[in-house]
């Protein structure tokens, strides 16, 4: 078929409009498949032209913008010179060859087809290309170079930029190519300024498939632009590089900066300082990165197994500091004999005091009350009654005189004796035991138990007792010379009285109770009034009932201080408590109050306390006057102003039998320490706070009736119960139980354990679970 020529100039030689030119071209293409367009700057040449048998268009003369725009498959366009902007715009299949250069915007939004450029292109080439998977990828071949902003948002376009006679030999791809590129491939040959965004594209060497594609197709390109002789020059593989898009998945893993930070740190940052910039301020400071869950020295806290470093409430609040918690532990461990030995090292009178007369301060703060009820301390005390005394130590040759054989003096003697110091008790009465023996009714302190404990006491080596000794200044002076120490434990044996009319008709409680316990009690009337409604008053009331009274009234000027067993016993017998009652006078009819009321009584007994009788005291021992009576002043170790003389018990200040026992033990320990040349250490443990314990591991149950029951119920405050809970809860397996070797000759063996729990620093993450779990409050978390 013949070539049809379409001219861009009319007969008059004037340029025809792009609209008219396009109409003419379309008409020509309808009848001819071979067109020669002598264009004169018309735009959109070749737009949407197609013939089933193909269409060949040759463009001669200046072509306008958008040559080959919306080019269709099967259409071939050859432009024999250079072309203007946007060649191949929205091309969907035409093959366009430009023998010269193309200006800006070449192949913008091209989706299919091929554009061959025999020279170079301007800015924004190959932007916004598309690739429809139903069709081939669009291709742009450039013999020379590209302008700036090449291949922006390139999506499907394959470009080949050969770098022959480039516009800028130093940069054949222009400034910042490939911004927003998401697909396609750019083959290039020659220098670039490396300004492509590193998060959009990456440079590689062509792989086998790419190289094969390039070498196969470049022949056709060179033929199209009529320069086949360049083939050899353009098929040197090492001269080619490829720009490929980075996938969003790859990008998500990348740091957006153009240089990895580690490289910047090593090559620029650190080099400038020649090392760590803080090395002069803090030599050796390690600032390297660590995690948030750490072990070893990087922890902020660390667990500590503080076994037995605090006191259980029972130990702490007992005036003798009897370690009930350890006794119960020994029972749990099956070391029954040691358990008794342990208690007898603290008191000679466990059954009489702990088991009978003591209000058991030990269990007033028993932690078990958080679960159900306190440990039954009375039961525990009574259980020791039949047990033999501990072995006494070898005699030291020292000897101590003890004036007064009440509970304070007895415990001084007992402790000294067990430590091998001779203890000589000088007792005013015909028997030892003080008020326990003299005034406590047998109803409250069983005679059988008492006698057995006194017998055990008296049978103990190193204890000597002299009864019926009246102490005088002279006698005291003798003892002072003869003995290493004197301990005054005379108690209070002078009843306190009030001066109201008829006070001579009133009996003193002390005298009444002493007589009541003797074979010849004093007679009592049918009605009895007791002035002073404390616990001694209650004992008086009980004894009065026993001796025949029918009605006992206790009066007091304030709310009665009586409590516990004494009060309960008096109330059970029918005693009436009245307060506030001020006594105006006592007559044969009874007590007349200051309001004039008569409380009928044949016997009136006053029970407002007793005071010490200290006529034997030398001037070297100072006293303090409180409430009209003199009391011996002492320090923490019970030493008086005379360093050889100690004082214990009620003679210092009135207290419970247990206070007296405690004072006796402390004083004895002082003497023992001194005699061994050791430093005396008072009991100084802190009581464990309740919140340190985890009591919810225990469930409420009955109190039980045996020592074993109490041992099972004991929460083992501050004393490891070897339950393994810490080992179990530890999430990192850091805690283990390890045996420790202990000497079998150690006196304190009963107070220590043969094992310990250890936390491995390298495994522990300091979660504190051990401390939060430990039922006994042993594990603590310490900052470090």
């Amino acid at each position, binding site marked *: 078929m013949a070539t049809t020529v379409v001219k861009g100039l009319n007969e008059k030689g004037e340029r025809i409009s792009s609209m008219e030119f396009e109409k003419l071209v379309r008409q020509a293409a309808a009848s001819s498949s071979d067109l020669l367009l002598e264009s004169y700057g018309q735009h959109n040449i070749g737009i949407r032209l197609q013939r089933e048998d193909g269409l060949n268009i040759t463009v001669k003369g200046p072509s306008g913008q958008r040559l080959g725009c919306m080019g269709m498959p099967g259409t071939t366009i050859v432009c024999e010179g250079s072309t203007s902007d946007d060649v191949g715009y929205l091309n969907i299949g035409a093959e366009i060859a430009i023998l010269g250069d193309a200006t800006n915007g070449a192949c913008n939004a091209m989706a299919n087809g091929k554009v061959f450029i025999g020279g170079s292109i301007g800015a924004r080439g190959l932007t916004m290309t598309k690739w429809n998977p139903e069709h081939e990828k669009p291709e742009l071949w450039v013999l020379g170079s590209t302008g700036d902003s090449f291949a922006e948002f390139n999506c499907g376009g394959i470009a080949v930029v050969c770098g022959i006679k480039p516009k800028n030999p130093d940069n054949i791809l222009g400034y910042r190519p490939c911004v*927003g590129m998401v697909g396609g491939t750019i083959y290039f040959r020659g220098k670039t300024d490396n300004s492509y965004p590193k998060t959009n594209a990456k440079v590689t060497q062509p792989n086998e498939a790419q190289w094969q594609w390039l070498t196969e197709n470049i022949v056709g390109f060179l033929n199209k632009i009529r320069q086949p002789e360049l083939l050899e020059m353009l098929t040197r593989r090492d001269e080619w590089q490829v720009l490929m898009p980075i996938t969003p998945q790859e990008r998500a893993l990348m740091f957006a*900066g153009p240089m990895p930070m580690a490289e910047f*740190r090593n090559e620029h940052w650190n080099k400038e300082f020649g090392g760590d*910039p803080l090395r002069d301020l803090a030599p050796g400071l390690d600032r390297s*990165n660590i995690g948030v869950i750490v072990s070893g020295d*990087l922890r902020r806290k660390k667990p500590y197994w503080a076994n037995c470093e605090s006191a259980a409430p029972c130990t702490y609040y007992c005036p003798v500091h009897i370690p009930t918690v350890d006794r119960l532990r020994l029972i749990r461990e099956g070391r029954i004999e040691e358990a008794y030995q342990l208690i007898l090292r603290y008191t000679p009178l466990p059954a009489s005091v702990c088991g009978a007369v003591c209000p058991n301060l030990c269990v007033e703060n028993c932690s078990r009350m958080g679960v159900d009820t306190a440990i039954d301390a009375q039961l525990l005390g009574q259980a020791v009654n039949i047990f033999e005394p501990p072995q006494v130590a070898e005699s030291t040759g020292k000897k101590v005189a003890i004036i007064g054989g009440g509970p304070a003096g007895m415990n001084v003697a007992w402790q000294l004796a067990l430590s091998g110091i001779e203890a000589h008790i000088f007792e005013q009465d015909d028997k030892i035991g003080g008020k326990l023996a003299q005034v406590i009714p047998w109803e409250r302190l069983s005679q059988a138990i008492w006698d057995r404990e006194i017998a055990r006491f008296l049978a103990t080596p190193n204890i000597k007792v002299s009864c019926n000794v009246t102490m005088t200044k002279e006698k005291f002076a003798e003892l002072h010379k003869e003995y290493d120490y004197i301990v005054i434990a005379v108690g209070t044996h002078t009843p306190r009285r009030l001066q109201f009319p008829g006070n001579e008709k009133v009996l003193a409680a002390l005298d009444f109770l002493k007589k009541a316990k003797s074979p010849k009690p004093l007679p009592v009337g049918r009605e009895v009034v007791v002035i002073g409604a404390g616990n001694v008053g209650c004992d008086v009331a009980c004894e009065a009932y026993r001796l025949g009274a029918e009605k006992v009234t206790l009066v007091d000027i304030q709310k009665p201080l009586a409590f516990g067993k004494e009060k309960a016993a008096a109330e059970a017998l029918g005693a009436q408590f009245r307060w506030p009652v001020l006594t105006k006078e006592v007559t044969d009819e009874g007590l007349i109050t200051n309001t004039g009321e008569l409380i009928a009584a044949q016997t009136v007994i006053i029970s407002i306390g007793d005071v010490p009788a200290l006529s034997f005291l030398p001037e070297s021992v100072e006293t303090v006057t409180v409430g009209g009576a003199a009391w011996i002043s002492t320090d923490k170790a019970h030493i008086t102003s005379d360093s050889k003389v100690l004082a214990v018990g009620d003679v210092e200040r009135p207290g419970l039998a247990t206070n007296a026992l405690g004072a006796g033990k402390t004083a004895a320990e002082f003497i023992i320490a001194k005699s061994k040349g050791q430093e005396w250490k008072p009991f100084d443990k802190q009581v464990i706070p*309740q919140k340190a314990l985890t009591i919810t591991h225990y469930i409420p149950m009955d109190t039980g009736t045996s020592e074993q029951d109490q041992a099972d119920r004991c929460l083992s405050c501050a004393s490891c119960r070897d339950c393994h809970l810490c080992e179990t809860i530890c999430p990192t397996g850091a805690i283990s139980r390890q045996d420790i070797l202990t000497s079998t000759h150690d006196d304190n063996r009963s107070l220590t354990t043969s094992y310990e729990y250890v936390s491995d620093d390298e495994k522990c*993450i300091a979660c504190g679970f051990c401390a939060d779990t430990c039922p006994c409050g042993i594990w603590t978390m310490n900052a470090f």
Partner: protein
Amino acid sequence: MVPVRSVSVTPSSLTPSDLLWIIEHREERCTLCGNCTAVCPKGAIRLAHMRKRLPKLDVFSKKRGNEYQTFTGIRQETEQSKLCIGCGMCSMVCPNEAITPVAGTNENRTLFFENRKGEPMKRGGRRNATGPTLLDRIIFDRISMLTDPALDAGRHEFSVTTTLGRVLSPEEFLEKSVSGGWIPPTREIFPFVIGSMSFGALSPNMWLGLLQGVAYCNEVLGIPVVMCTGEGGCPPWVLRSRFLKYIILQIASGYFGWDEIIRAIPEMKCNPAAIEVKYGQGAKPGDGGLLMWHKVSKLIARLRGVPEGVDLPSPPVHQTLYSIEESVMKMLQTLSMAFEHKVPVYPKISASTSAKSVLNNLVRNPYAAGLMIDGIDGGTGAAYNVSMDATGHPIASCVRDCYLDLAKQGKQNEIPIFAAGGIGKNGNIAQNGMAMIMLGASGVHIGKYMMQAAAGCLGNEKNRCNVCNLGICPKGITSQNPKLYRRLDPDKVAERVAEVFMSINTEIKKIMAPLGRSQSLPIGMSDAIGIADKAAAERLQIKYTC
């Protein structure tokens, strides 16, 4: 004697529902791994063992009694010193999403007891005021649509730097150029400056991470970011490095670390970017630094030239200065001279109704290179809560007034005003900053935003975390304890700094491009902004847009 079973209450006894942050723990998901209690910075949570009573309540059975069940759970402390701060580190380390703090919806009872030992509440962070700020509500409403060529932020070349330093009037400049007189130094810097956070308020890893990021921005990205040291001095090796040129050295009433700075002057490779003379700050006007002993580690003590482990309250004002005139004379001149008049020196003040007077004074002083104004929403490492929440002046109207005042005198291009305080409070960093610039600031300082964006600071304005003052920062940003600050990798901070500034850089362009502007920051270009708030529009003299 108090029975063991009794529960004692005190005036400050609290229940978990009284608290600002309530720990929600799902026992069925808990693996008892211990991570949460190990990581908690306050010791606010513990493993609890609980006992449940199940009474036998079968009406047809004569048997009575109870069964007991024990179970575990993570429970929170209600003791004031151990209250949960909502940082959420527990959730971060929980392998099974079993634990998280949630904001208490009840009234915050704890606030009533934040005064133990008679000491009012102190904290870090910024004003606890939530919701959009005024800056957040400003929109850029002048868009060039086909009228003048719209610009493409991604492709066009922009110049977005700002001038720090005194710019002479053209007449004066010519005169000085001809006569060889002194022309005040200026710097072309990125308009978003990392504000003054001291080496001490920040951990070493945070401070150096920021500087490393700043160096990267300058040397790799070509974004000329500078940062201000705060008043804790500057490590000697840094003073002697080329990175000094990215640093604004601050001198404040505490004078910490200035001996090292002066000692380093003869050995400096370059000049610092500028000197900031701090007279006040936005978060706590009338208070100086409050670095507490927890944070005065051996390293900090060494750098600051103070004993270890002591409180370092700085006085609210410079002790030997009594008036604006004297301050300007003494400090600006001295510091300018110290660097041979080659370094811009400018004062930083708290935003205040009196800011204009300060500015007018500076206008007359050739040594004043600018004015930095810090508004009420500024952050701090430690301040009294009442200072932070209720003392100060919002930045927008303060800077606007100052700028308009300058404009009235025709001096608006001669002395730059920098603004700070709440820029990026809700994350809208570039928008806030550009709004501020269009209101008249030459640039903004950002501190708290950088901690949040570059290091993952967990603090917020619902009083989350905000324990910067205690040195227990769970991210290691404001702690001086290596066990905490080693959690923070300076490389990662630097990377984030780079990312933040790359992103701000793009956003500035995205804001400037529609204005058809690419070559100079739209400082004071208030015709391009509007706000849907009539009162604010009137006050700021900008358009009311609705």
